[in-house]
């Protein structure tokens, strides 16, 4: 008797919940562009914010609406650019594309005129110098935002990959079939 009532109750409960969930899925659905879903699924999903958007979904929305380029995601690298370009039917030049490598700005002392424009725009105060003195970048504080590169009148600021030292050399991931 108990068993029977348990079976009946659980079955009824299951049917009721399933039905209500089914109805909810159909009538209370949040409309969203399926393309955004697809783009978001391709992205790394780490919500790192390196693209300038607060997370991967806003970035995906921007890419789909065309307000951001398909190359916006540094951690995604070349493979993501390729997939996005294919999905959205955009032409993109991949010959120049390279996988994101942490970069820092460096001042070329030959061409720096000491104009102070770069350190005025640096968000982390990573550039030191004074008017008519050669400036220098504190690599530890540089976040590679390239703002200084854009304002430099003599193009003496260039982005360089961070040099690997003995202290931060790491073993690469083993390439294995296992």
């Amino acid at each position, binding site marked *: 008797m108990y068993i029977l009532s348990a079976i009946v109750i659980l079955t009824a409960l299951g049917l009721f919940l399933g039905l209500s969930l089914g109805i909810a899925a159909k009538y209370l659905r949040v409309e969203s562009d399926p393309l955004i879903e697809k783009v978001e699924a391709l992205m790394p999903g780490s919500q790192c914010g390196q693209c300038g958007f607060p997370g991967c979904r806003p970035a995906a929305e921007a890419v789909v609406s065309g307000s951001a380029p398909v190359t916006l995601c540094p951690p995604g690298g070349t493979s993501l650019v390729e997939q996005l370009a294919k999905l959205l039917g955009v032409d993109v030049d991949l010959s120049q594309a390279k996988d994101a490598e942490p970069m820092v700005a460096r001042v070329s002392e030959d061409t720096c005129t000491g104009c102070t424009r770069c350190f005025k725009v640096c968000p982390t105060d990573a550039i030191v110098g004074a008017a008519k003195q050669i400036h220098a970048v504190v690599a530890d504080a540089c976040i590679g935002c390239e703002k200084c590169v854009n304002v430099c009148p003599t193009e003496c600021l260039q982005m360089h990959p961070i040099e690997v030292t*003995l202290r931060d050399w790491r073993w690469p991931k083993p390439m294995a079939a*296992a």
Partner: protein
Amino acid sequence: MLALFENPRLRGGIHAEEHKAETSGVPIALDMPLPKKLYIPVQQHVGKPAEPLVKVGEKVLKGQLLAYSQGTISAPVHAPSSGEIADVMDFPAPHPSALPIRTIIIETDGLDQWQPLKAPDDPFALPAEEICALVGAAGVVGLGGAVFPSAVKLDLGRKNKIHTLLINAGECEPYLTCDDRLMQERAGEIVTGIRLMLRGMNAPEATVGIEDNKPEAFIAMREACAEFANINVVQVPTRYPMGWDRQMLRYLTGREIPADGRATDIGVVIHNVATAHAVYRAVCLNQPLITRVVTVSGSAVAKPQNVEVLIGTLMSEVLDFCAADKSRVARLIMGGPMMGDALPISEVPVVKACNGILALSEQDIEIPEVKPCIRCSTCVTACPVGLLPLEMASRIRANQLDAAVDLGLKDCINCGSCSYVCPSNIPLVHYFKFASGELYKRQQMDHKSEQTKRLIDDRNQRMERIRLEQEAEARRVMEARAARAKEQELAKQKAQQAQQAQQSISEADNKAAVEEVR
């Protein structure tokens, strides 16, 4: 079933081909010719690098301080021979990457002239602190391979009231026999070193653990310790990694150090046997650590032997001395074959950590095909720490590093037992080294992003402050201007009033004059 009959104090481990016979019977060579140039990296220890205090062109004597230790965990380096400082520059380090490290280069003058040494009359009359200070000043670091500054460990031992000093003479790595030969030839000096360490830590007794594949060393050490009842020499079974301090401690005392604890937590401090010898030299002879015994072996070496090498000698010169055939060297290893580092070039200096130079030819090495994991769990049986290497590796392969940490990645000692036994030839330790590096990188990135946030915050605050100051300044200027305008206005009014008054006075005067005229 067999596991039940094994000694319960031994967990995991492997027994690899020893290859020790080639060098264990040959006396330590002391006649290595003095190199023309010595390359002394400023960091040969765990902790902060030493800071050079010599200048290019300066003449130095053997044993002179070249770079002083910085901070609590650091060690100085000394001149291994007399000569002139040729340069202080970046030079390839003995490391798998051969990336450069700050190195002091000495051009030797061939005189090998010592600086005046102040050897104490009775080293045992020195106070404990003094012994530790001498050990620290001599740049003695753990010579088993961990290169932790020994003085720091001695101080730690004194402060934590330890009951036993464990001298690790396991030397479980295949090929290596430098500690074995040292014990056979210099047992008396080692025992003096051990007694000095005991005194430096105010510890009552010491135990020396020697693997049972070194019977001559065991006999020599036991004879040297015969008159000291507080120093025990015991044999331990030959089973890699017996030289791992925790394994030896577990075997000898039956106690285990907690995962995130230290040996001092259970009242024990562990030092390597070669370190004891370095302590003897540092305290009794006042000689800094400028030489070490290095095993040179491998099938590409014609004269395999142990050599007492000056720190800073290029490995290529050591190999030449031992008649190594460079064309046959397929892999060059610093240290032992299990935990040592494969070096891409031989033009790197011998450092304090270097206990072996192995020149292996094709016949010694094989690069087997990596096959999928069959989950046989042989690696679990072999792991001396009691971890699950196969599970950890599969997590790391899927980039789930946190899951690997939960499985105990941080307790892995990279001993290589799991890789050694794996029937599918999976480079398990490589995975763990990669993961540890990746975790460290992440930690650094987190640190950097925190720092970035702080920098941006600071800048915004500064900008806000400057804006407020400018506004205040502008307001002040405006107010000042307004006040001046008001003043001028007032002055003008006054002037007008005065004029009017003057006028009225003059009018009145005029009137009066007119009246008078009338």
